[in-house]
């Protein structure tokens, strides 16, 4: 195979990466801009980060976002895992196809529709919109992502592990917590991380289902941008990017290291 750096390859890669990352790079660069004008470079400064932390509105929004993210991701993980278990384990109940279709429909459902229907529901049952409804909405749309991730792990799960545990004297509940859960835990954790990420950057559904006093960071940023982009927003976004990037890189490194270690062990075992 010819793997040398042909001119075409280099151009393709540069263009591709520029397309993906140029906007983000610009945003990061301008977050360190001295000037108040967003598009004119006025020298390096970190003053926008300082003012960001003094901006009570943004900080409140960030706190709401984190709380909603933590609570909704955790609830979505519990519900999504249960749904995945039901769908992979009880394959013969009536309406299974319908049920699994319904669990996965929100994956492709336009967010506007999800948001609007949730809003209508909350109005119909007389729930005051705020932190609670916002969290409920986030649980609703992120649990199906968790279900997909956990289900794909459960499909390859060796049921004889559970049978072995029961055979050795562990009742079903104990078997679940001592065998099933630890084995599928990596999938559950990545499901949680996915749900958390989806929650902290959601704008559309949040806009429909939130109320006074429960403004999330994306909502806050969006509303501020309409009044004009400030370098403060750039700084806030840069921090968000940093958090997400660190999370993703750490997760993949941990995964990769575990995989490499496992392969090495298996080869060692084969050699005897």
């Amino acid at each position, binding site marked *: 195979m010819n793997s040398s750096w042909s001119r075409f390859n280099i151009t393709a890669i540069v263009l591709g990466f520029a397309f993906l990352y140029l906007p983000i790079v610009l945003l990061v660069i301008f977050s360190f801009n001295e000037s108040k004008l967003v598009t004119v470079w006025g020298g390096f400064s970190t003053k926008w980060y300082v003012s960001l932390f003094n901006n009570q509105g943004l900080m409140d929004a960030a706190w709401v976002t984190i709380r909603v993210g933590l609570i909704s991701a955790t609830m979505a993980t519990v519900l999504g895992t249960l749904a995945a278990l039901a769908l992979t384990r009880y394959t013969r109940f009536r309406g299974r196809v319908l049920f699994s279709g319904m669990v996965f429909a929100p994956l492709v459902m336009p967010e506007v529709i999800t948001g609007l229907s949730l809003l209508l529901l909350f109005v119909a049952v007389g729930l005051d919109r705020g932190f609670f409804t916002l969290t409920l909405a986030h649980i609703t749309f992120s649990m199906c992502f968790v279900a997909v991730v956990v289900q794909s792990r459960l499909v390859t799960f*060796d049921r004889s*592990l559970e049978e072995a545990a*029961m055979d*050795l*004297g562990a009742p079903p509940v104990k078997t679940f917590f001592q*065998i099933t859960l*630890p084995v599928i835990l990596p999938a559950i954790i990545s499901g949680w991380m996915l749900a958390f990420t989806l929650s902290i950057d959601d704008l559309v559904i949040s806009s429909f289902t939130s109320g006074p006093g429960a403004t999330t960071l994306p909502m806050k940023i969006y509303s501020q941008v309409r009044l004009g982009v400030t370098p403060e927003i750039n700084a806030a976004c840069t921090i968000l990017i940093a958090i997400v990037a660190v999370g993703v890189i750490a997760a993949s490194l941990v995964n990769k290291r575990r995989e490499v270690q496992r392969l090495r062990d*298996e080869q060692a*075992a*084969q050699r005897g």
Partner: protein
Amino acid sequence: MKSLGNIRREFAPWNKPDAKPYIQFKDVTKRFGDFTAVNNLSLSIYEREFFALLGASGCGKSTLLRMLAGFEEPTSGQILLDGQDLRGIPPYRRPVNMMFQSYALFPHMTVEQNIAFGLKQDGMPKAEIDQRVADMLKLVKLGQFAKRKPHQLSGGQRQRVALARAVAKRPKVLLLDEPLGALDKKLREETQFELMDLQQTLGLTFVVVTHDQEEAMTMADRIAILDKGEVMQVATPAEVYEAPGSRFVADFVGNINMFEGKVADRDGTGATIASANGVTIRTANAGDAAAGSEVAFAIRPEKIKVSSKKPESGDNVMEGEIYDIAYLGDMTIFHVQLGNGQVVKASSLNATRATEDPLSWDDKAWISFRNDAGVVLTR
């Protein structure tokens, strides 16, 4: 110390009329939807017996084992263990343990923790657990691997861990589902003998499921041959091989030549059989086959002698031509085509390095066998 052979020779509770079966399947049927996996099956297994369930895949042997372990309940019928009806008792309360085909080692636990798992469920004191785990590791010679995870072990080592884990609780009965299926041939042969030793040392009842007849013949005291959810025959390995009860068993275990025909004449215990394709066979033992009934005469290849000259005497002598030869090193298998077109397999042991009576393709040859070499099958 008694040798294994002596213990085995004396062990035959199934012949004692007053012996009480340890495990009893009574008219057990198991259906999965429209599929009948086990059909009205009855079977008795005795204490300390090494019992093998042998059959092709889909014959219901694994279902039997899973019903004994408690993973499946019989659709109808009864399973008794030491006189106790097992119906409704969940797997975690049955005094049986199983070694799984896939080993089912817990991937997130070390070898030690895997073996200790069952003991912990019983609430055994920690010091006792440690002692038992150490004993088990010694028994399967895995002492230095105690802290390893299953994926850091080779296939053979994993098999031993699975075995140690299953016997750690000292169950009344150990169930083994294709215990040697995942091992390579050489390791499998070694492990067969280790399993037999272990069974004698621990004095447990073993029920093993296998599709490998050699494995069943080597290890088991008795073998049950299953087909389509029914027991075809239960007997010792020698009986199964030398006195198969039906065409199916004769054909399933080892190689065999079959002559389909009718009993032409009966005299005392013997009979003359006229095969449908024109061969007449004299046999000294025809069992209860009535004159004129449809039977099959079955004879194993190693009981047929092949020679280039017509033997001077013999009960059954037939002329033919060498059709094919398979040289296997320890023995040679000749395919001899008789005058009527039927191909008969005959094997001869290569006891010397050079053959005195060399035979080659298309050579004229004579086959002969004694009148007590074959069996007459009525079913």
